[in-house]
């Protein structure tokens, strides 16, 4: 196997709060291969965004307490802030959920898209602007030359997200982290942006980490997926296998709880009981055990490690690791 482009190893990021320490990321490990799109899926508070921010070393006020983030073998957690600035933008770009708040309202769009190449490649104004206009055109902004002179408020939500993507791509980074890039957008605009991300992946070969709560988006975009719950990875594997035969009860129940557009007849949904845990006061053992339909005595006692279950998947579950198939009414 080729060496992964990006490797996250046993990452721990904590936040100090009035109520105690929050282990937002609690021992997360995964790898991103060159050119692939990896899905990171989970609900709010599961640690998916903090994982992404920790990779970029933008986790503050959180603190990375241990673990490594290797980009082509180099540990980002040990870099100086100065070195890190070179990595951000040049090698890893990030786009956020809300394109409204991530663009500067007082600068023209073209200038903002040109900024990374001026900073990282030392290009002059003219060359940087030419490449910015070129990139705006590539991400599907009509009349990019005149649009580059507009301000962010003159763009719609979907167009702003295209601008963000253009800004991220000008320096041709090897890794793109997209944190809920379509959550704030309408479905038809979501479809446009997802299509653009597919196109970017094909044309530039940019490896992408796609963070989302939407299982449908993962199904359509990612070959591999990582499922997070309460700061930990509970399941990982090829998307096809994870969706067809989930090996963690959380994945299994989540997939059964969502209504599907292609459902043939009306069947009552099968919700997951209870609610996501409070990160300050996590349940003992497996964090999912209070809501789990398959739990055994051990689940409340010991934390399961993420281990190989079946052919291609890994799951952190005592029940499936013991060979039990997940099934039920």
């Amino acid at each position, binding site marked *: 196997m080729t060496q992964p482009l990006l490797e996250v190893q046993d990452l721990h990021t904590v936040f100090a709060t009035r109520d105690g320490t929050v282990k937002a990321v609690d021992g997360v490990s995964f790898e991103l291969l060159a050119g692939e799109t990896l899905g990171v899926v989970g609900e709010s508070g599961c640690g998916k965004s903090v994982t992404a921010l920790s990779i970029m070393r933008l986790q503050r006020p959180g603190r990375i307490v241990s673990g490594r983030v290797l980009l082509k073998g180099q540990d980002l957690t040990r870099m100086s802030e100065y070195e890190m600035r070179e990595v951000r933008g040049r090698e890893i770009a990030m786009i956020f959920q809300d394109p409204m708040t991530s663009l500067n309202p007082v600068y023209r769009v073209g200038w903002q898209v040109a900024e990374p190449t001026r900073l990282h490649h030392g290009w002059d104004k003219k060359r940087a602007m030419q490449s910015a206009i070129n990139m705006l055109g590539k991400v599907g902004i009509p009349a990019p030359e005149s649009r580059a002179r507009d301000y962010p408020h003159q763009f719609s939500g979907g167009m702003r997200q295209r601008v963000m993507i253009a800004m991220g791509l000008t320096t041709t980074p090897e890794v793109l982290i997209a944190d809920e890039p379509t959550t704030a957008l309408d479905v038809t605009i979501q479809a446009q942006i997802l299509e653009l991300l597919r196109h970017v992946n094909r044309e530039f070969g940019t490896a992408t980490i796609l963070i989302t709560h939407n299982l449908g988006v993962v*199904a*359509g975009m990612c070959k591999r997926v990582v499922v997070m719950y309460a700061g930990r990875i509970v399941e990982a594997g090829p998307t096809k296998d994870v969706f067809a035969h989930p090996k963690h009860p959380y994945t299994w129940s989540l997939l059964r709880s969502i209504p599907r557009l292609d459902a043939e007849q009306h069947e009552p949904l099968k919700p997951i009981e209870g609610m996501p845990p409070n990160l300050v006061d996590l349940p003992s053992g497996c964090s999912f055990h209070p809501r789990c339909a398959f739990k055994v005595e051990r689940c409340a006692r010991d934390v399961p490690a993420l281990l190989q279950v079946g052919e291609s998947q890994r799951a952190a579950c005592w029940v499936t690791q013991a060979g039990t198939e997940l099934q039920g009414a």
Partner: protein
Amino acid sequence: MPELAAKPLKRAWTTAEPLVSVGDLKVWFPVSSGVMQRTTGHVHAVDGVDLEIKAGETVGLVGESGCGKSTLGRAVIRLLEPTGGTVFFKGEEITHIRGEHLRALRRDMAMIFQDPYASLDPRQTVGDIIGEPIDVHRLAKGKQRQERIRELLRVVGMNPRYADRYPHEFSGGQRQRIGIARALAVEPTFIICDEPISALDVSIQAQIINLLEALQAKFKLTYLFIAHDLSVVKHISNRVAVMYLGKIMEVAPGRQLYQRPRHPYTGSLLSAIPIPDPTIELQRERMILQGDVASPVNPPSGCRFRTRCPRAREHCAEEVPPLESYGAEHKAACFYPLD
């Protein structure tokens, strides 16, 4: 639940007639500009909508942000006064009623809001939040009121002792249950659910959907379910209406809409919704729309969807396509419908 006083009803209405009937409904909002703040135009939020809702059914209303679905909902339960057209409820026209008449109507209708964090007063206890409609309509007092509040909490699956707590002590899903209990307090026949689950975590959404379905069966409720998520709407609704820029483009039973959409907008909306199945996603044909929704201040002539429609021809700009029937319960407004 304790018996409540009978509701006032002007004329005899039978469940064979539609519970709600909306005719050519318009809701416009003025746009002003300049120093004098003169009205320079109107946002055509709802612009000529016809819709009927039968007693006991759930009608889903889908569309993208700004299409007017929430405004339509608010006009139907008269939180807004329509600019034009008519709204009938139980056979009685309620388009412009006021005062005592409107107050009486409020005992028959309720609304569940999207944001369970913003729609509950943080300084009121849960008991007072649920008790407010009971007080306003003088439905119960003293011990009977307390008992009613506890009963409502039980009905939505919460511990009756929570009546003394405050909203911040609860999670999003529990707050939405409180909002539902408040809506049920007046024993309404008709409830508008405006994006009731879109602010909730994925694993909580199914709990609330199932609760709404159970309550509908138990209290024979009629729902207008407004949401942007077509998979959820299709699941919960008997019929689904698709809205675009203030107009209804297509109405049909959910499965029929999915299997055989007639309006190109419905088709592209359906193809834009991801299905959580990698095998299906891989094979799906995508119909990706170009551009953004046009401005509701100055909507396109003729069919409003024509500026983004892959099938649009000259005729579409000249005339507004009427809603035409395609079978019993299926209607679409398109000159060049999908097969």
